[in-house]
């Protein structure tokens, strides 16, 4: 199926999300759509998938103009979409999820349960996707859940498959497997659209690249042999450095000391299991690992956000287990939470208010419980400039900001205090290249100023860019603490549970 978008324009009020975008996807081709977050990639795909109606422009399939008023029509026409956030029912089996929305029904409306399982097996075999149709979805690893989404699209006979940021939640190994599957689908004649902002994958898998920036196509028919720095430049609109320039660390005394720290869940299972490590002043310790191996819980335990914690953790000699979050922040700990939308910001507050969220009790923001909003506003204006937050003013609601700018607000808040420790969990997840560069530079600056930095990341690129030492976590335990010159393969093995 040959899919063509011609002059697609989509506006939201005064914002032009897609401005006259044209794109052709050939069968048997992987077409990468590269752009920063907020560049308009997802809007374009939502138009194509019938979730949004374009204000201008046309969609053509094999030369015939079509209009999709709903996703059902798009699916009918042979377009399949794998969303960034999976649309699966956790308690259903794989087969049930696959047939959901297109159930095969017998007499009296009875489900024919066997057919879906057969369909899953058939598609699995045909494209080498190994999935057990009877497995319950929530028990499956994320990578397999994603395959279920792909199978779902394929059983609907999709000829054109759209993958929206498919590797955001995958381990390096899972990513490789996914790209292999995508290549196989291409070889069988499907047209593939790969939406991403990750340059490595694009260069590895794509046949042709279209780069969009601020809703416009800035480069089309780009060859995947184009160097990464050049692609990044197109995406961001200026030269970017992908490496973080940093001097070798000059670590001092240990500031964070964790020994035998365990965290238990409500069923008394150890999510973090006797973890011990130090972070010294002036170094970055990166906690690497596939998501869900206890890293998040470890950080939350250190921040006093968990109960059921045993063992010891100290900041500058003061024990912090059982202390309130407020006390811990008061010891000079800066905290960038993993989920910035949920834990880091109040969406309905202004930027300026968010910047004082954890220090509202202290002068000069308030005296005797009465807030000095004038000072908070001035501080907001100053921080917006200093941290390069792209917003009309410091008085706009945090919810209106893009991911990168939200993270800058969180960083600005945490780093405008006197710090001894900076704890950052997944600090660049979902951010665009420009913002990643900014965040990394700030972390290294903090390190150079003698702050002990603990960075949790499941992105290997980030780990290599920042770490002075790498701690790998697997199944709640420390799989090893290694130097950053470890090879990618060895690190991948540690992350997958091989003992180091």
């Amino acid at each position, binding site marked *: 199926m040959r899919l063509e978008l011609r002059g697609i324009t989509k506006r939201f009020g005064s914002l032009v999300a897609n401005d006259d975008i044209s794109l052709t996807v050939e069968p048997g081709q992987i077409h990468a759509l590269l752009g920063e977050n907020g560049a308009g990639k997802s809007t374009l795909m939502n138009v194509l998938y019938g979730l949004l109606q374009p204000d201008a422009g046309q969609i053509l399939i094999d030369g015939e103009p079509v209009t999709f008023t709903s996703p059902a029509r798009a699916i009918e026409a042979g377009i399949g979409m794998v*969303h960034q*956030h999976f*649309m699966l029912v956790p308690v259903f089996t794989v087969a049930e999820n696959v047939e959901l929305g297109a159930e095969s029904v017998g007499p009296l409306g009875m489900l024919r349960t066997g057919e879906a399982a057969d369909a899953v097996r058939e598609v699995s075999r045909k494209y080498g996707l190994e999935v057990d149709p009877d497995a319950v979805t929530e028990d499956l690893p994320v990578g397999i859940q994603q395959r279920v989404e792909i199978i779902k699209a394929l059983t609907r006979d999709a000829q054109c498959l759209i993958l929206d940021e498919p590797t955001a939640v995958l381990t390096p190994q899972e990513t490789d497997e996914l790209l292999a599957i995508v290549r196989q689908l291409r070889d069988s004649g499907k047209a593939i659209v790969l939406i991403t902002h990750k340059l490595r994958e694009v260069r590895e898998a794509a046949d042709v690249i279209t780069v969009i920036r601020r809703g416009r196509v800035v480069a089309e028919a780009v060859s995947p042999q184009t160097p990464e720095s050049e692609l990044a430049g197109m995406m961001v609109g200026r030269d970017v450095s992908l490496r973080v320039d940093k001097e070798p660390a000059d670590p001092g005394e240990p500031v964070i000391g964790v020994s035998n720290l365990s965290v238990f869940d409500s069923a008394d299972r150890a999510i973090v299991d006797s973890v011990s490590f130090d972070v010294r002043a002036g170094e970055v310790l990166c906690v690497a690992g596939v*998501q869900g191996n206890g890293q998040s819980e470890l950080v939350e335990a250190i921040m006093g956000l968990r109960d059921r914690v045993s063992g010891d953790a100290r900041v500058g000699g003061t024990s912090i287990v059982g202390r309130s*979050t407020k006390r*811990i*922040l008061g010891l000079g700990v800066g905290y960038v939470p993993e989920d910035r939308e949920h834990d880091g910001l*109040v969406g309905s507050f202004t930027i300026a208010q968010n910047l004082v969220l954890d220090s509202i009790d202290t002068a000069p923001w308030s005296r005797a419980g009465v807030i000095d909003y004038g000072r908070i506003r001035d501080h907001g204006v100053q921080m917006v400039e200093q941290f390069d937050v792209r917003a009309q003013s410091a008085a706009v609601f945090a919810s209106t900001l893009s991911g990168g700018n939200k993270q800058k607000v969180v960083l600005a808040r945490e780093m405008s205090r006197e710090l001894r420790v900076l704890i950052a969990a997944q600090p660049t997840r979902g951010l665009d290249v420009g913002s990643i560069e900014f965040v990394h530079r700030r972390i290294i600056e903090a390190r150079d100023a003698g702050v002990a930095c603990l960075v949790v990341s499941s992105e290997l690129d980030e780990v290599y860019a920042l770490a002075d030492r790498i701690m790998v976590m697997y199944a709640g335990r420390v799989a090893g603490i290694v130097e950053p010159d470890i090879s990618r393969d060895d690190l991948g093995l540690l992350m997958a549970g091989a003992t180091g």
Partner: protein
Amino acid sequence: MSDPTNNDPLMDDREASTGLSGSTTADTLHPPTELTSSVTGELRRAVLGMNLLVSALAVVLALAIGAVLIALSSPNVIESAGYFFARPLDTVSAIWQSVTSAYSALFQGALINIDALREGDISRAFYPLSETLTVSAPLILAGLAVAIPFRAGLFNIGAQGQMAFAAIGGGFVGFAISLPAGVHLIVSLIAAMLFGAFYAGIVGFLKARTGAHEVITTIMLNYIAIYFLGWVLNQDWFQREGRNDPISPILSDTALFPRFFGDGLRVHAGIVVAVLAVVVLWWTLTKTTLGFKIQTVGANASAARTAGIDVGRIWIAAMLIAGAMAGLAVSMNVNGTDKVVTAGIVGNIGFDAITVALLGRGSPFGVLWAGLLFGGLRAGGLAMQASTGTPIDIVLVLQALIVLFIAAPALVRSVFRIRAGGTEALSLAKGWGT
């Protein structure tokens, strides 16, 4: 910086967008937070995110539907409809007559009696306004008792019970102790506030310590308070001597709110207390760290906890304030209009308060206007019933319709074809991952 959480079209909708991958973070320190936000989050979003225009239009729409009901309940309209095909204009004019006279009576009954004003009878002319203010005072205060917890993310259904409990303390001090005039009133009010705060504080404490959902605890505590009040009213130390029915002694004159215009008009100093409470709570919400924290907890409890705010303590604080306001609310009746404590002292005010708080969008000044509107509707409704025979139930229906439209803002928008900024993007964002 004015009230920051009002008029926000893009409230945080992270709750709705947790995908499968979110299941690993389920077991956090206070699991009930998540539950609360999912139960009341939708309503919170609808109410706080609503703009002034929509509230005003909800009132207009309710009045329009009320007009239909008035016409249908008018005997003249029914009679003329019997010969509609012979003389259709009769029906039309009967409808016009009934609706205009009913609404005019409602309006005059709520604000000012124009005929009496012409005759120069000032007392009778301002009787309606006096009634409106008298009825509004407890509604405003009870509305605050619902609105403040609402801002902290709690849905206080318990104003009714908190008022009933507070009536015991305020009433007892009012009739059993003798103190100088003025001081006695103040001590009685403080007693009512303390009793109310204690009773509401239980809810905050249970929520903070055990995660017990406040909707359930407040509803149950309502029963307990109402029956406890009934029991107290039958005890020797509370029941009026020589009476077998549940009624307290009459309060000492020293514990009563002064009336502004003598005994002809019921309006008393309580309305001043209500307005003062509105101003104080507005100031607290917008200018103090406590208010900042209440709003932070209400808008995003996870972020509040991450920022080192003790969420449980803020819940307790919000409930203590709410209980104190409920105490003041019942004092409007105990120390103002009724001068005694009876089993029916609370009336239905604690539940009407929910409506007032919703219409007032959880903001103190919003509650003031909503309380005045409902007080006016109540006072005017009585006058309307007396002068035109239109049943006062119409007013209750109007109130219910207003809230119905507020709970479904999309309906109002579609009726008046208002385009809400960013609605398309918002609803789409919600569609993802749910």
